[in-house]
């Protein structure tokens, strides 16, 4: 194929390596910025280093800039400034076909006039892979995805889940240095989604793929990712492991988006290297872990965040807060409990998740406790916990 001058410079060292040795390459993004007409900044100074073989998710609601960032890495959309380096090669101004990345889209985008086999073989044919080698690799890839029996079918004869598996195969088969996935499971139902998540994760681990995954589903992000970049208004709020995001959220947005945290208003009463003491508006004293640099020693007003699952019950009068149990809802092995704190006139009820065995009765007066290590303290720049509003310079 003479027109494929593009291919001559393609690096294919990974192509021959057996599965498991890691075909993924590192990717680094520096100061990426994209402004659309009308002065809307879609992506604002996004920088991150992604290691080879790492599974990274861009998590955010719609309009957070996650897809735009992905499209810039893919090359379908040109950044105003910043650079993208894949495996040591600057690809910022390259056309998508010269970047050699892999894609899986939400809409599958399989070629309808080709069979499953032809779809998966297509990227290999572009690379002039010898016929025997091509046959072996397409066969292996289809087998890995459990599609061996479907090779001769057309995409429209497959279910959504099968189609997305074919799309995944098509992206895997040429061992791209980085695979980009744009909400690939968004169009599937819950059960299928869970199943495919497991499969994607397994294949990613086996082949050592570098994957960048875009989703708005927190659970999906937590299940799949080595690290998650929580995005909001075109910026990365926090880029960390799921555990760190969960336990050490750096902004109220992250605490709310991932953990659906309770926010308790108050002010800092004491700050020591061991702990921070917050006097809550409801009167109680809440002990939080010591605060880092951005700690609001001078800020009088703060919000303390605790995940519902990290709160415990104790007798009324003890703990940092006393209140009345309002609702008790069984959710399988868990109970969701809301407690209306006494003393605060119009405070939000506090949400708890307890093991089903320890459910209180509605109307009961209880105290609330929390491990200081599970309590994060944020400066209260906005009076009410309005989380959509960007707080100034948090976590950056």
């Amino acid at each position, binding site marked *: 194929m003479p*027109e*494929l001058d593009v291919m001559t410079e*393609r690096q294919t060292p990974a192509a021959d390596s057996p599965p498991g040795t890691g075909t993924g390459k590192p990717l680094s993004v520096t100061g990426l910025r994209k402004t659309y007409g009308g002065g809307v900044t879609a992506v604002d100074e996004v920088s991150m280093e992604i290691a080879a073989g790492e599974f990274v998710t861009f998590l955010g609601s719609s309009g957070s800039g996650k897809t735009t960032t992905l499209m810039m890495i893919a090359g379908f959309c040109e950044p105003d400034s910043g650079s993208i380096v894949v495996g040591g090669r600057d690809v910022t101004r390259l056309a998508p076909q010269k970047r050699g990345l892999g*894609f899986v889209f939400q809409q599958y985008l399989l070629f309808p006039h080709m069979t499953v086999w032809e779809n998966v073989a*297509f990227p290999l044919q*572009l690379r002039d892979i010898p016929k025997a080698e091509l046959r072996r690799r397409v066969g292996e890839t289809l087998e890995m995805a459990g599609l061996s029996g479907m*090779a001769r079918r057309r995409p429209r004869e497959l279910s959504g889940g099968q189609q997305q598996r074919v799309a995944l195969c098509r992206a895997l088969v040429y061992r791209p240095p980085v695979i980009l996935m744009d909400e690939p499971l968004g169009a599937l139902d819950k059960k299928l989604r869970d199943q495919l998540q497991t499969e994607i994760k397994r294949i990613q681990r086996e082949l050592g793929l570098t994957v960048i995954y875009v989703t708005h589903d927190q659970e999906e992000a937590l299940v799949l990712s080595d690290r998650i970049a929580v995005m909001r208004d075109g910026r990365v709020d926090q880029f960390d492991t799921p555990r760190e995001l969960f336990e050490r959220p750096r902004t109220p947005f992250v605490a709310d988006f991932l953990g659906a945290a309770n926010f308790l208003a108050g002010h800092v009463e004491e700050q020591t290297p061991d702990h921070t003491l917050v006097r809550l508006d409801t009167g109680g004293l809440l002990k939080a872990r010591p605060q880092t640099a951005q700690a609001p020693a001078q800020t009088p007003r703060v919000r303390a965040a605790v995940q519902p699952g990290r709160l415990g019950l104790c007798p009324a009068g003890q703990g940092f807060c006393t209140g009345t149990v309002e609702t008790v809802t069984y959710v399988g092995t868990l109970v969701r409990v809301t407690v209306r704190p006494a003393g605060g006139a119009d405070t939000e009820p506090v949400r708890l998740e307890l093991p089903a065995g320890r459910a209180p009765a509605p109307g009961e007066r209880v105290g609330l406790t929390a491990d200081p290590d599970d309590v994060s303290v944020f400066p209260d720049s906005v009076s009410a916990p309005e989380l959509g509003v960007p707080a100034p310079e948090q976590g950056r």
Partner: protein
Amino acid sequence: MAGSLLASKPTPAVTPSPVPRRGRLRRALSDRRTRFGLLNAAPVVVYLLILFIYPIFSTLLLSLKGEEGGWTLHWYADAFRGANLEILLTTLRISTETSLLSLVIGFLLAAAVSRLKPLWAGLVMLVVIVPHFISALVRTYGWIILLGEHGVINNALTDLHVPGAPFQLLYNELGVVIGTTSVMLPYTVLLLYAVMRGTDRRLLAAAAGMGAGRLTIFRRIYLPLVAPGLVNAGILCFILCLGYYLTPALMGGPKQTMVASLIDEQVMRQNQWNGASALGIILLLLTFAGLLLLRLVKSLGDAARKRGAAS
């Protein structure tokens, strides 16, 4: 033929099990829905019988009748002999040339239009289609004015000192093909535009992402996706050209006489209805052959693809 098809359509729905033929018919007729359906089909059946079946069969009969009564095939033999055969071949040739040219131009035009924003696309399509509201006669004379020896085009070329100008653009095959192509173009553009609009452009982006160059994307993705439209448009064009009369008659020379002109001559000048009928039936058969070819190409393509998948 089509009428009976319509009328008998509801029958299979009410006869699930193998019942003797007459019983089946009676049972079908006893169904109120079937009777209602037959009643509804009646106007169509009558319409088709009077305006479609009857004329075709009478033409067929006419073409098989000898001058002194009795049956004969010699009108057909005449059609395939000497000058008549040449005219038949000319018709096929000009139709093929016109179809190919209008496919190429139509493809380029439709591809360009399908990339425009809907508003602009609508406007361009209007420009393509509106001339069709004008009488073909007027348009043909328009072409004659443009293409004549002292027409706009030749004058411009002469003023520009293009070597060889003025060119003979009329009363030859070039003239006929230009004229008929302009008539056929809206059909190909409309058909191709519909197919292209229905093509998911993100598929092309997906192929690009995988590393396909522009030419490969066009050859391996775009062309196969719009191929059904190309085949349909080409065959339609060909069929329409076969019986086209006005433009070839006005813009062609003696060597570009097409079957329609021959029929005209036989009826109007020689009062030779039988021979004209035979030519008409031949045109009809050629049309059917075109349609058959369409099916054949389609099934061959499918078979080839299946074999490709198997290897």
